[in-house]
């Protein structure tokens, strides 16, 4: 699947001296192509997470359009857009993202359980937990895990349905060097297998894994 932002911008209303409108993301054109890993780096508050949320259908742009294989993403109803996120997208949000009442295994299986699909899902979830070194925690609950372990769980969850587009918002934030390398290689691997990957990070080493590099500064995307 190809995702393309065309003049997508997002502003918020805030009472300020000069203007009541503050642009988090200025008009932006961005294309995520299958098999390509796009790395967007920038300082905290530069607008890169807002851009990622617009691209993955979680935040409607104030201006412009996001196209998914030629279809206006935000013209879809909530049901169709949610189903698209579930089936085609894998999203790794910033920060802790465990569903507190589910075990780690259930958290990883959650996207598949939501629409009742996949008899083999438990086995695949087990394999992913094994791959990320948290299989021994499968029956634990999120509050019993460290930040790094939770992040690995979120990545496993994003990969459970083998998404066509993978969005990762600071996925290596709480990880040590060894795990950072593991996560970045997993994202690289997903791109190599044909997924379009959007990685938002301020991790310097991430650039080495990317096909396309962007920088975000005060809501303006530049690069490559």
């Amino acid at each position, binding site marked *: 699947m190809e995702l393309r932002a065309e003049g997508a911008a997002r502003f918020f209303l805030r009472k300020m001296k000069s203007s009541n409108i503050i642009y988090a993301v200025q008009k932006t054109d961005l294309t995520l192509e299958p098999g390509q890993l796009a790395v967007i780096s920038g300082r905290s508050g530069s607008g890169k997470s807002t851009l990622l949320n617009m691209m993955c259908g979680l935040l409607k742009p104030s201006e412009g359009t996001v196209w998914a294989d030629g279809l206006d993403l935000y013209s879809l109803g909530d049901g169709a857009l949610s189903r698209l996120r579930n089936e085609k997208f894998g999203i790794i949000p910033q920060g802790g993202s465990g569903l507190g009442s589910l075990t780690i295994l259930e958290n990883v299986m959650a996207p598949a*359980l939501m629409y009742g699909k996949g*008899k083999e899902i*438990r086995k695949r979830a087990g394999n992913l937990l094994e791959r990320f070194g948290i299989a021994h925690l499968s029956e634990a609950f999120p509050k019993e895990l460290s930040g790094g372990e939770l992040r690995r769980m979120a990545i496993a969850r994003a990969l459970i349905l083998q998404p066509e587009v993978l969005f990762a918002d600071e996925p290596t934030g709480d990880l040590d060097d060894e795990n950072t390398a593991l996560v970045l290689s997993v994202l690289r691997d997903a791109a190599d297998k044909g997924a379009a990957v959007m990685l938002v990070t301020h991790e310097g080493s991430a650039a080495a894994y990317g096909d396309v590099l962007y920088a975000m500064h005060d809501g303006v995307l530049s690069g490559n």
Partner: protein
Amino acid sequence: MKRKTQGITIIRIITLAVSAFFLAGMLSFLKPCGPKEDGTWMHCHEAGRGLLILAAVLTLLALLRFVLKKGLPRLAPDILSVAVCIAAMLLPGTFVSLCMMPDMRCRAVMQPGALVFSAVLLVLAGLDLAFLLRPSQRDTVKE
């Protein structure tokens, strides 16, 4: 396993509290009438004494549940409680007759009180037994 232990502990604490309240009730607000003017006692006095003893036994059994933790003896307090609760339900009115008028204390307060406390303790004993005999299992979602 942890959830099962927590569940049993909560049930046992509630059982002890209800039994103790029943016993305290039989010594105070559930007590039948006192002696008549001529010093003799009515039928209900015997029923009241019987219920007091049964309430004391139920309290003792509630305490024993915290002590007996292994093997078959751990089931004994529950099984005995079921029998004692049924006896407490039937004692006033069936095994020992009460006063004839329904607005007398023994029939308006003591008998319904014994019935309510026994019924609650019977359910609690059943729950405790079910917890002891149930293999631990986790709830599941359709995949």
